[in-house]
């Protein structure tokens, strides 16, 4: 009984340690004097009342503190999640401290070279200043990604199956794939812009192209690597060609298909931002370009922050799908 209580106290210590860095960041933002007088924060009207960027930073930090406390409490019951949480405590503490340090050096004392290294509060300022505009651009990027990537995946898997299954298709298509695949997708930009009716469809085309190559080649490899014995087992059971393809070759290729999808995802993010920077009427890349022209580096950082969060969420979702589809591998692959 006593040992159990000790465990609870120890775990609570870890939760406290996790949020301690963020708590420190809140206190520093709140209590540390603004020594550099050139910095002024404007107040903006929001749906939560009037606030400035400093307040927004504190709100974000409070949300992080509450979030990590709640997730810590929820993780307590599951041993694996608990271990993971404890393992991450140090890193999260360091994150909080880093925010505090950047706040002092970037905003409060302004000893970092300006305007290239704004403090955390300034990075959040654009969300108050032009939140709607950022949201519009984020949605533009997201739409571009969803269209481009889903067509890329479909097209890539389709081509991969063709090449992997039919020898004729392998002979004719794979050299084209190997030559065209190494060209960075943005190189097609000028061509795409003239060929497609709108900049949006041109960018979708580029993302499709960049996702197509890794997915197609890995799908083909996965299909070709299906052991002959597996086909024979299926033939003995009465399977026809369609059965061999859809119930043997494709499931067998699934792990490689997902490797292709992960690679394609990284390509797609790059191509997406590059395409937006080179000639799109919206999107986060477009926003960065716009901010750069006015030397508003804090806005560039704001856009980068959104990309980090958005792309991480996308990767996490894809990871979830992969984990579900490949659940039969649990225990084989570490």
């Amino acid at each position, binding site marked *: 009984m006593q040992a159990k209580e000790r465990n609870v106290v120890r775990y609570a210590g870890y939760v406290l340690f996790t949020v301690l860095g963020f708590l420190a960041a809140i206190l520093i933002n709140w209590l540390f004097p603004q020594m550099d007088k050139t910095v002024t924060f404007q107040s903006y009207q929001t749906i939560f009342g009037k606030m400035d960027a400093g307040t927004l930073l504190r709100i974000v930090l409070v949300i992080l503190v509450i979030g990590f406390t709640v997730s810590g409490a929820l993780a307590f019951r599951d041993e694996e999640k608990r271990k993971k949480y404890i393992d991450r405590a140090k890193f999260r503490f360091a994150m909080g401290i880093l925010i505090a340090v950047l706040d002092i050096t970037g905003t409060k004392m302004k000893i970092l070279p300006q305007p290239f290294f704004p403090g955390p509060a300034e990075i959040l300022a654009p969300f108050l200043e032009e939140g709607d505009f950022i949201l519009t651009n984020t949605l533009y990027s997201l739409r571009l990604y969803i269209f481009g990537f889903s067509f890329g995946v479909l097209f890539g898997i389709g081509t991969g199956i063709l090449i992997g299954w039919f020898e004729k298709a392998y002979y004719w298509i794979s050299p084209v794939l190997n030559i065209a695949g190494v060209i960075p997708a943005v190189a097609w930009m000028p061509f795409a812009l003239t060929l497609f009716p709108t900049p949006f469809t041109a960018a979708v085309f580029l993302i499709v192209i960049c996702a197509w190559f890794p997915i197609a080649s890995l799908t083909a490899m996965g299909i070709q690597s299906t052991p002959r014995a597996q086909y024979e087992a299926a*033939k*003995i059971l009465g399977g026809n060609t369609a059965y061999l393809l859809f119930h043997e070759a494709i499931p067998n290729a699934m792990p490689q298909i997902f490797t292709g999808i992960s690679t394609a995802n990284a390509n797609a993010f790059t191509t997406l931002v590059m395409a937006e920077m080179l000639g799109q009427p919206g999107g986060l890349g477009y926003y960065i370009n716009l901010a750069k022209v006015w030397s508003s580096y804090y806005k560039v950082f704001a856009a980068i922050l959104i990309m980090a969060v958005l792309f991480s969420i996308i990767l996490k979702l894809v990871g979830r799908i992969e984990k579900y589809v490949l659940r*039969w591998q649990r225990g084989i692959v570490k």
Partner: protein
Amino acid sequence: MILKIEHVNRQYTEDERSVEVLRDINLELKEGEFVSIIGTSGCGKTTLLRLITGLDKANEGRILFQGEEVASPHYKRGYIFQQHNLFQWLTVEKNVAAGLKARHVFKENRQNIQKYIDLVGLKGFEKSYPHQLSGGMAQRVAIARALINEPELLVLDEPMGALDSFTRADIQDKLLEIRKEKNLTMLLVTHDVDEAVYMSDRIVIMTPRPGKINEIIDVKIPYPRNRGGVEFLSLRRKLLEKFDLANAQPQPEYMI
């Protein structure tokens, strides 16, 4: 006769050189019979099974299954492989159901899935994946997967070769039980003389290079057989002698 093998020859061409694998194989199997083929490795046992199931084609001669020439694989001729060859991405239940799905008769036969899982003694493992099973369990899933198609001939290619002797004995009994219940014809390839004597009505002895049938021995011991019985041991000895193993003297560890 459920199966008739007539003057079958099989050669491969390897590096422009012809390798004779099977020469003039003649064999007939009666319905419900259990026949074992024993022989050292390289005597073409597996090739013969592949010809029978239709995974491979003979150069000369013909194989008749229920009076019709074997042209391609058919679910009526089940095959248990040396390796279980289960579908790694499917649960036990779905592996067993694979044959029904492949033949598009899943809906009308789905109640059989549990029946066959129970038959091979894997109740409770329906939702497990192949890599979570032991070798013996996986091989039993493979047996259930073959049986659900209700084959009329089951060929077994050393399915117990990789298993420990307890698991092997267990699966041997299970197979005999199934054979009795369904009057299923079985053709087993094995290295193990004990296994052949324990299970078969007839034992076919093959010799290698080129693989041909050397002798066919009738086993007249009534089932269930006693592995320690006098008749069992004398037949076992006789078979081992044919392979020149019975009289081999143990090598002394040292000499004076």
